[in-house]
């Protein structure tokens, strides 16, 4: 069934959009990530302009995160205190990221910066996650106990001041790295147009040693707040949010996220991290190929928005 999207200005097949929402929603519910780094390229592939795709995907991510966050809330798997501290850093990071975004656009190097950042970021994060989780799985196979929590091992991070106790996560860390992580997520999100969940989850696990059980729910709360405000900001400044597109993506997304969240809870932590690592790595490689392989056509056209 074809339906005409009012802001994207083209007809799409409703079932294709619903299926895409369902698939990405499943992945986002399972890993606690927004899935923007998957959905945006998919929409652009369908012929929707990148600006409309980025703006509309924020709504979809907000809905998926909401649905996932409620599931985790009922399982008491959300650390609200941690989420608020991350948000505090995130707001500053977003402002800084928007500043850099504007600067890069002014000197005409935005596209290539985004392309290279995707490859580097996804490549490094994906490779690290795959490496770490494979090691954990191998160790478990050999019968050694899985070292998820090492209460005795202190790194330099634990020597920082302003220590706070996050009860739900059962960690006692300085507020400085928490703000720092929030800042990085906000900054990267604004520059690259992604929610940053796939970065946040490994950072919380590896840097702050947040147990896997509360990581995903907490990440979802952060994603929900940032993406809902991004929807409002995109709509207010660029008028590029296609509500109809967002609605179809949402309906598919929230259903997918429900099943994803359930599948994620039944899976062992290191398996889950291996899968997410492979997914992130695959998308990173896909972006790298785009940069390196000779394109099908070296020309491309893009309408100039009247406001620019």
């Amino acid at each position, binding site marked *: 069934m074809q339906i*005409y999207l009012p802001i994207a200005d083209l007809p799409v097949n409703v079932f294709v959009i619903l299926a895409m929402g369902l698939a990405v929603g499943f992945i986002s519910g399972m890993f606690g990530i927004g899935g923007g780094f998957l959905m945006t390229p998919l929409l652009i592939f369908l012929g929707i302009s990148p600006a409309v795709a980025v703006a509309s995907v924020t709504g979809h991510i907000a809905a*998926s995160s*909401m649905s996932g966050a*409620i599931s985790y809330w009922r399982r008491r798997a959300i650390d609200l205190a941690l989420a608020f501290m991350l948000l505090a850093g995130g707001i500053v990071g977003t402002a800084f990221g928007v500043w850099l975004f504007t600067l890069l656009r002014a000197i005409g190097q935005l596209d290539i910066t985004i392309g290279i950042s995707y490859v580097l970021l996804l490549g490094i994060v994906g490779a690290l996650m795959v490496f770490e989780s494979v090691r954990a799985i191998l160790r478990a196979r050999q019968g050694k106990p899985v070292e998820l929590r090492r209460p005795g091992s202190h790194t330099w991070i634990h020597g920082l001041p302003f220590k706070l106790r996050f009860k739900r996560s059962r960690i006692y860390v300085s507020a400085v790295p928490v703000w720092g992580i929030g800042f990085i997520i906000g900054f990267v999100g604004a520059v690259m147009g992604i929610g940053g969940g796939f970065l946040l989850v490994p950072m919380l696990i590896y840097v702050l040693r947040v147990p896997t059980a509360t990581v995903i729910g907490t990440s979802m709360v952060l994603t929900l707040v940032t*993406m809902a405000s991004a929807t409002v900001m995109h709509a207010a400044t660029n008028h590029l949010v296609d*509500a109809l597109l967002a609605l179809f993506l*949402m309906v598919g997304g929230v259903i997918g996220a429900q099943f994803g969240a359930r599948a994620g809870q039944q899976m062992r932590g290191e398996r889950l991290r291996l899968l997410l690592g492979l997914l992130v790595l695959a998308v990173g490689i896909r972006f790298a190929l785009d940069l390196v392989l000779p394109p099908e056509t070296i*020309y*491309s056209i893009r309408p100039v928005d009247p406001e620019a």
Partner: protein
Amino acid sequence: MTPRAAFSLLVTLGALAASSAPAAAERLVASLSNHRVMVTSNFTGEELVLFGGIEQDSASRPRRGGYDIVVTVTGPRQTTVTFRKARVLGIWVNADSRVFENAPAYLAVLSNRPLDAITNTETLRRLQLGLDNIPLPQRASVNIADAASDDPFRLAFIKLKSDHGLYREASNGVTFLTPTLFRASIPLPAEVPVGTYEVDVRLFADGAQIARTPSPFEVYKSGFEQIVTAAARDHGLLYGLATAMMAIATGWFASVVFRRD
């Protein structure tokens, strides 16, 4: 007055002068099947039909080569950038670009036989007929100039537009039903932008343009599509808040519906 406007005025005056001359007393009449194309939620493109007739009077002399019709449909203007990629340090980047100022977002040149068979190259260029001759001014820093018709950026622009069905040149787009009655079908793909479209019908005989008539139409959004577009444009903040609330409500609703624990 821009050179283009001045030129079209000249052409119009020329056509008027030609039609008043006794040697070319043909009159051209044309009408579209629909002057207002409505974009609704089930819009997947449309095909407009243009019917036209050539009226002869007693002064008309028989034309040896018969009549030829060229229909040019020009959509709303849109400034577009064409990028060219090049390899820099092993990575393909957009290295060069051209800005096409106010290029037609849609362009169809329909005729009953190939344009070069209707009239000579010189006339086609003068009348700006066909994809090779349509003016597509490019902006290079401060100067605006129309590049040669074999300019690679221009060719790439036309090719990419044609791939989307937005630019086309069809030498079988016009069909003569009788020697003086013709029909042209104007295909509008789903991506056509909203706005005013100019349809320019030109009558040729023996290689010369002898009459010309316009027949504009409009593509517009209606109903739900119109409401959403207007809301997004005029009340961005409220629209955004509503979309965010919709997202939160959808997420909450799903978690209630699927609750199992």
